[in-house]
């Protein structure tokens, strides 16, 4: 069907856009910026804050451009005295209730409210708000909520409710007493929150942030009795550059490694090596389950946001989850066993730091079931944003750094491990290995493009060595819910399912650099970062996990067989049902 186009005038400039376009989007096509606060494309389009008001000829009052659709012959003015004054009063009212502590705020210089105050030239706030002080909720292992900075835009509410179908935060109370919070003023830690951090990356201000673990890492680095090793997940290397002003989708692997070495870590390793172990274990598990027909479909479990979602909402699928630990946990377990032995260190003297695109990994690392012999596999998890902060604190000039390589033995990885960072990547990585094993060949066609792309749900039937395997991939919990409900009802059948907690996979994780609403209108962030991931894969020498020589060496020297007794002890775990509230 052809979409009709509509002609209108914005500030006397002729504009032609498809029917259904909002004034805000139409204005952007002719380089006119209308300020927004609550609006976030595809996530929150509710017209709540009224920052974006414009004059529409014929309308009696100012209109919210972010939700107002264009119509034929419309005349819009975005920069009249009335518009400027209305926006200014709105902003001053928001600021009068806001805890304005920019100097000590995580979001300073990446804050949509701060930028708006600068853009609108606020030099005085004429209103004195009533400023009750709210207690900061920092009981969650992953997420800190500070209502004193909240501007009630409800972006977090929308993402938690619509994108994740977790719905643990909402507007509470009425009028001037409205806050965004949990039922019965509970801490997030006492709700079915899955720690995904999607609320953080949509928040325009400093009201939501990750639990800061950087101090603990610095402390370990300066403790002479500790051997501190760091590992970085695949999605970090395609996003970290953004924190230093580089374009979205820039690959900074080499600079990142150099920076970590300069900061004083005793070993700088690649989580991807561990991801190859995850594939060996999970691939073997898939083969075993295909053979026995038990607990199918196999469902991936490397996303801790998804795992907690499953524990709360789909406990009947817990036996379907892969028992293989997530890559960074496998890494930790191997550090404290294999590596400790090799280096002649005691496992309690090794401090494992994970740099992750993910806030849920903080919660995961604290799970009691992920501590072999009482020693946690991973000691601290920091997000992409936190490691950027530490690099700055260390006075490292990131942009101008030369490249360097990860340290041995956890320095070499396959391309299969790299693509873990994008939705469909774990599936593709597993298929590359499983297909080789089943066919007994070194297959050349290894790009499973059916499972690539950022669509919420992807499915395909593939043939491996004459066997039909039905696969599905979902990212974001609304999609996972839909997919699993269709499996639960018997409407759909699969052998293998990959699920990632965040929409688009880890590249769009809750620990990644925060991209503002304006940029989101022009760039598909997850897609751009994922493209960089697939480039990284192409550039690898080995593209299949079982071809990684390090993996084979460690199985030979230490672990024995995939899914063998020692692997089971060190590299596998299980999860249990959790109540909601």
């Amino acid at each position, binding site marked *: 069907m052809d979409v009709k186009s509509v002609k209108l005038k914005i500030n006397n400039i002729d504009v032609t856009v498809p029917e259904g376009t909002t004034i805000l989007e139409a204005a952007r096509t002719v380089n006119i910026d209308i300020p927004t606060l609550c609006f976030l494309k595809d996530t929150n389009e509710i017209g709540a804050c009224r920052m974006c008001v414009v004059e529409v000829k014929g309308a009696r009052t100012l209109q919210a451009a972010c939700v107002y659709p264009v119509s034929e012959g419309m005349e819009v003015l975005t920069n009249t005295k009335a518009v400027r004054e209305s926006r200014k009063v709105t902003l001053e009212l928001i600021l009068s209730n806001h805890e304005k502590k920019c100097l000590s705020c995580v979001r300073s210089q990446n804050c949509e409210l701060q930028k708006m105050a600068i853009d609108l030239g606020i030099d005085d706030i004429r209103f004195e708000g009533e400023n009750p002080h709210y207690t900061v909720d920092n009981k969650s292992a992953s997420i800190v909520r500070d209502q004193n900075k909240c501007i009630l835009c409800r972006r977090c509410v929308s993402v938690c409710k619509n994108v994740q179908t977790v719905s643990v935060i*909402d*507007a*509470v109370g*009425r009028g001037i007493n409205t806050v965004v919070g949990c*039922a*019965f003023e509970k801490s997030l830690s006492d709700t079915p929150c899955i720690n995904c951090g999607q609320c953080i990356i949509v928040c325009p201000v400093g009201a939501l942030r990750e639990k800061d673990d950087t101090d603990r890492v610095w402390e370990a680095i300066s403790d002479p009795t500790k051997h501190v090793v760091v590992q970085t997940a695949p999605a970090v290397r395609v996003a970290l550059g953004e924190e230093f002003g580089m374009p979205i989708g820039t690959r900074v692997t080499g600079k990142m490694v150099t920076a970590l070495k300069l900061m004083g870590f005793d070993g700088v390793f690649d989580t991807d090596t561990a991801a190859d172990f995850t594939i060996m274990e999970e691939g073997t598990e898939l083969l075993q389950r295909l053979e026995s027909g038990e607990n199918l479909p196999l469902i991936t479990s490397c996303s801790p946001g998804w795992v907690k979602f499953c524990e709360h909402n789909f406990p009947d699928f817990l036996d379907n989850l892969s028992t293989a630990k997530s890559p960074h946990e496998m890494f930790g377990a191997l550090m404290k066993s294999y590596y400790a032995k090799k280096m002649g260190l005691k496992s309690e003297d090794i401090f494992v730091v994970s740099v992750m695109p993910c806030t849920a990994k903080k919660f995961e690392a604290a799970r009691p079931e992920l501590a072999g012999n009482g020693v946690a596999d991973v000691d601290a998890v920091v997000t992409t944003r936190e490691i950027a902060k530490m690099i700055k604190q260390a006075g490292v000039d990131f942009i101008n750094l030369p490249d360097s390589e990860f340290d041995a033995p956890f320095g070499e990885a396959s391309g299969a491990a790299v693509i873990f960072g994008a939705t469909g990547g774990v599936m593709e990585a597993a298929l590359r290995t499983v297909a080789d094993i089943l066919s007994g060949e070194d297959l050349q066609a290894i790009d499973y493009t059916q499972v690539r792309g950022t669509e919420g749900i992807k499915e395909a039937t593939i043939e491996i060595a004459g066997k039909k395997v039905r696969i599905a991939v979902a990212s974001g919990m609304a999609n996972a819910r839909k997919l699993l409900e269709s499996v639960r009802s018997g409407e759909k059948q699969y052998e293998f399912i990959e699920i990632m907690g965040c929409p688009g996979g880890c590249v769009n994780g809750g620990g990644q650099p925060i991209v503002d609403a304006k940029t989101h209108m022009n760039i598909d962030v997850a897609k751009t970062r994922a493209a960089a991931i697939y480039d990284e894969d192409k550039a690898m020498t080995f593209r299949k996990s079982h071809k990684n020589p390090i993996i084979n060496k460690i199985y030979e020297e230490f672990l024995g067989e995939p899914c063998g007794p020692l692997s089971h002890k060190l590299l596998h775990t299980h999860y249990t049902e959790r109540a909601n*509230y």
Partner: protein
Amino acid sequence: MVENNTIPFNGTPEQHEKLMAAIEKYKGTKGALIPVLHEAQEIYGYLPIEVQKTIAEGINVPLSEIYGVVTFYTQFVTQPKGEYRFAVCLGTACYVKGAGAIIDRIKERIGVEVGTCSADGKCSLDATRCIGACGLAPVLTVNDDVYGKLTLDDVDAILDKYLK
């Protein structure tokens, strides 16, 4: 925002049955939440977390959303009423004649915040909008008894009577 209540929930099986019937009645219809909340409040007198959780599961609406609705509408309460329901009028006439000080005195004596109930379930305190007895300002009601033209000493005497 009031503190979470400390009074243990003691709903009866009969109440639960009625609630389930109300849920059944509205389940699947559009806008089921508000009528179910109304019936639930009729049944229990208030809407504690236990009741809201049952409703959440029953009509498949997240607890956070239910709590948002309950706190938005003033007719819903999350705190039970006490055996003695103290209510101080905060209409303009009462307010200018010192209702604020009366509230503070009652709070202090019975040890509860406005909108809450004491842990033993005896006394609850509310601030109400104008009850139309401005000639008697400031006014306090306890259950169905109305006391007017109060001084703080009167308040003490009234409290003594109930608290004994």
